[in-house]
């Protein structure tokens, strides 16, 4: 009784907290005000150490979404984790995660951001290794260490920011924009955000982190943890306008979007496909952010959070029904057996593709049209549109694999959908992923974007989507005589299918060099030269000298006094001469 009621208590608590945040959003937006509370802990040699919180509509809105998702995820875990002995621990970890996310969201100060950021990294590590098998340990280590890079970069930016005497970056963004130090800080922050949001050199951890329990994936690796980087960059957005370092981010995030879109088509693990689609959407957010449209990135972040959490929760239910099997090759025909789950899944998938009037439509379509309106090079433009097509491509492929066809696992089976605990919490998100786009597009854009395009340009999104949908249908239909394209283009396919070999880069690639270097250093310096010439050497010299010195103390007292007199006489003679 107690085990299941902890979920209920916390779920309801977070739900009401979310409603409270919604009230705050309305209040702050209506009056166009920002609350900035600050407590000066200590002021030391003109450096102020402060704890600040910033309540503006942006942080409150994000908090509202985070709390809503965490409330439904906790309610959902009641059933999903029902046979778990340590459910208390699990829920506590999730709550700690949500609280550190909240700390990150409301802090305008680098140090408190670091606290939230490190909290996210640590708790997400604990959550990834929640199932204690080798796969989870490896994934957790990869996650933790990739995020650790970001922590270090934030620490470095903190030390750079000490130049300004306070860590409230909020004040310096515009004021110190042309400063060289601020440029360095911006670069560090950008790289840190890239680790957290799994942009290209660091993206291998996000699919690996799918070793976590599915509610965790729904909360952590789809909508909150990975968007922390995007959120941080939205806060730092003023700094990046017209600065050249952001072009690197534009390129890398565009490539991430593209790479993840392609890799999702080769992946067969249900959760990994969704993770890769998250990665693709993160790339979309990052790239529109790096073009200076922070509000659009934020908008997509929110809508994406809704339908991606829903998608993960549906996937979790399916995995639950299939007795932990995640491979979509075993699945099929679930629309017949799990109709309500399939309903949620398809709506979330369509929202992801940007089917009109679902949540994703408002944000993605707006982003793409703004991209078309802006002055952009051809390469990035194609990255955007190919990735949009790829999104529809893998979504359709996934739907086809899951919904259509026969059940592939075994011949005698009975799937049932009586788990209304999970379904109820999914329905909350279902409603949100239908209406949140239309709601937010009115609410959070005080300054609307004007779009004016020619017909073909306007229909470009529709073209690529239709093409992607067609291809998604084609790859998932398998006939006896159809050629296996994977074997035909084996090398290319394996390159694209494993995220352009990025996992190898972040596991074996870099470690090897540094480990071997460290081994050599240890052998030659620590155990060799340093030991001989500094540690042993100094102590030997001191010991020898000390023994030699003790020899002087063996002398006669008479000799000592005599030598003193001699010394005096010597100087006396010098005086006379």
């Amino acid at each position, binding site marked *: 009784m107690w085990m299941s009621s902890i979920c209920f208590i916390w779920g309801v608590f977070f739900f009401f907290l979310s409603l409270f945040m919604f009230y705050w959003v309305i209040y702050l937006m209506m009056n166009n005000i920002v609350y900035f509370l600050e407590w000066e802990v200590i002021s030391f040699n003109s450096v102020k150490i402060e704890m600040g919180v910033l309540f503006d509509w942006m942080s409150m809105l994000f908090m509202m979404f985070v709390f809503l998702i965490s409330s439904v995820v906790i309610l959902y875990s009641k059933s999903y984790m029902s046979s778990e002995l340590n459910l208390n621990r699990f829920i506590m970890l999730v709550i700690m995660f949500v609280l550190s996310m909240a700390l990150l969201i409301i802090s305008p100060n680098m140090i408190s951001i670091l606290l939230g950021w490190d909290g996210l990294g640590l708790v997400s590590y604990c959550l990834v290794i929640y199932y204690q098998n080798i796969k989870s340990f490896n994934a957790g280590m990869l996650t933790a260490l990739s995020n650790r890079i970001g922590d270090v970069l934030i620490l470095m930016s903190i030390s750079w920011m000490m130049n300004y005497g306070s860590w409230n970056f909020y004040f310096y963004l515009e004021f110190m924009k042309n400063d060289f130090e601020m440029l360095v800080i911006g670069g560090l922050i950008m790289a840190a955000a890239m680790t957290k949001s799994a942009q290209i050199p660091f993206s291998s951890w996000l699919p690996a982190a799918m070793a976590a329990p599915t509610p965790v994936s729904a909360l952590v690796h789809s909508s909150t943890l990975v968007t922390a980087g995007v959120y941080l960059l939205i806060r730092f957005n003023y700094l990046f306008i017209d600065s050249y370092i952001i072009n690197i981010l534009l390129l890398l995030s565009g490539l991430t979007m593209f790479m993840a879109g392609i890799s999702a088509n080769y992946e067969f693990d249900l959760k990994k496909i969704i993770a890769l689609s998250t990665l693709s959407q993160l790339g979309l957010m990052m790239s529109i952010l790096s073009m200076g449209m922070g509000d659009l990135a934020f908008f997509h972040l929110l809508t994406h959070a809704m339908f991606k959490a829903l998608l993960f929760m549906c996937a979790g239910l399916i995995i639950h029904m299939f007795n932990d099997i995640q491979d979509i090759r075993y699945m099929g025909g679930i629309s017949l057996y799990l109709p309500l789950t399939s309903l949620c899944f398809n709506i979330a998938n369509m929202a992801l593709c940007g089917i009109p009037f679902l949540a994703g439509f408002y944000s993605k379509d707006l982003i793409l049209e703004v991209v078309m309106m802006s002055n952009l090079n051809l390469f990035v433009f194609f990255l955007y549109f190919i990735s949009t097509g790829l999104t529809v491509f893998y979504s359709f492929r996934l739907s086809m694999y899951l919904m259509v066809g026969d059940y592939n696992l075994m011949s005698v089976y009975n799937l049932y959908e009586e788990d209304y605990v999970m379904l109820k919490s999914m329905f909350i998100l279902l409603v949100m992923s239908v209406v949140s786009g239309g709601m937010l597009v009115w609410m959070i854009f005080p300054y609307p974007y004007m779009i004016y395009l020619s017909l073909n340009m306007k229909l470009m999104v529709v073209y690529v989507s239709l093409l992607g949908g067609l291809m998604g249908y084609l790859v998932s239909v398998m006939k006896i005589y159809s050629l296996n394209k994977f074997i035909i283009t084996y090398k290319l396919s394996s390159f694209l299918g494993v995220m352009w070999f990025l996992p190898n880069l972040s596991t074996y690639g870099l470690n090897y060099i540094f480990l071997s270097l460290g081994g050599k250093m240890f052998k030659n310096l620590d155990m060799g030269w340093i030991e001989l010439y500094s540690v042993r050497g100094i102590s030997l010299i001191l010991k020898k000298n000390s023994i030699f010195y003790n020899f002087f103390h063996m002398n006669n007292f008479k000799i000592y006094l005599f030598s003193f007199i001699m010394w005096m006489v010597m100087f006396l003679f010098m*005086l006379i001469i």
Partner: protein
Amino acid sequence: MYPSLNSNKMFFYFILFLSTLISISSNSWLGCWVGLEINLLSFIPLISNTNNMMSSEASLKYFLTQSIASINFLFFILLKLMWMKNFMLNNSISILINSSLLMKMGSTPFHFWFPNIIEGLSWFNSFILMSWQKIAPMILLSYYFYSKFIIIIIIMNSIIGAIGGLNQSSLRKIMAFSSINNLSWMLASLLISENLWIFYFMMYSFLIMILCLLFNSMNLFYINQLFFFNMNYGIKFLFLINFLSLGGLPPFLGFYSKWIIINFLIFNNFPMVCFFLIMMSLIILFFYIRIIYSSFLFNNLNLKWISIKLKNKQLFFYTLSSLISIFGIIFSTFFFM
């Protein structure tokens, strides 16, 4: 620990303190000499203890060295008076006068009497010798010194203090060598200003007082006594951490004085002196830590029949002064908040 309430000894203590005051407040060299001489003669009866042969040997040695130093001092101040008419500065004669004063305070290269004598003294007399007896010669030195000579002496002091103490097993000798090393800091502070010297000297006397009182109350004379030094771990920790303070490890009070001297030395362009002082105090810290380790970590026996009990009154005093020595620098920062 407390000096016995013997009226004769009280009298000699009185003369000991008074003679130093005579010496340092006199306005002629001859008056200074008189003060030093009285000081010498009043300290000898304080040293001697009829029950202990070592102390009479020490008093004899002390008498010999100090009187030879006094003779030389008298000779050269008279010589200076005759030849230079008291106004001129001459390097050679300043070296001669300085040498005799350095011998009096037990600085290198005339320090050989110092560890020898201290070996025969009680802890309280060692404390007097290491702190009070240094006042008069050092103040006199500050009147008239040849700075290049003193710099050489400083460096030698720091090296000899560090190297000499490394191989000792007697706590009194270790304290003597650490005193030689601290003498180098004091001389360095004399190069800069007398106020700095007073500051350093007060700090040093305070720290050394805590340790001497401690050793006296527990009858500790050799390192191996620390191996079976059986008392409450926390109290032991509190006491022995004073060694780190004396060695000048940063969060403790002993660092404060050294810090300020380092600061002034660098301001006044003595980087080399500063370098030697810091490096050698590292070695000093090394053998302090060795003392502490033996009591804390390994070789530490808890013998049931050796148990050290402190009187409550003493304990309060020691704890208070140890606390000041450990947290003094942290407390003092509150003054500047």
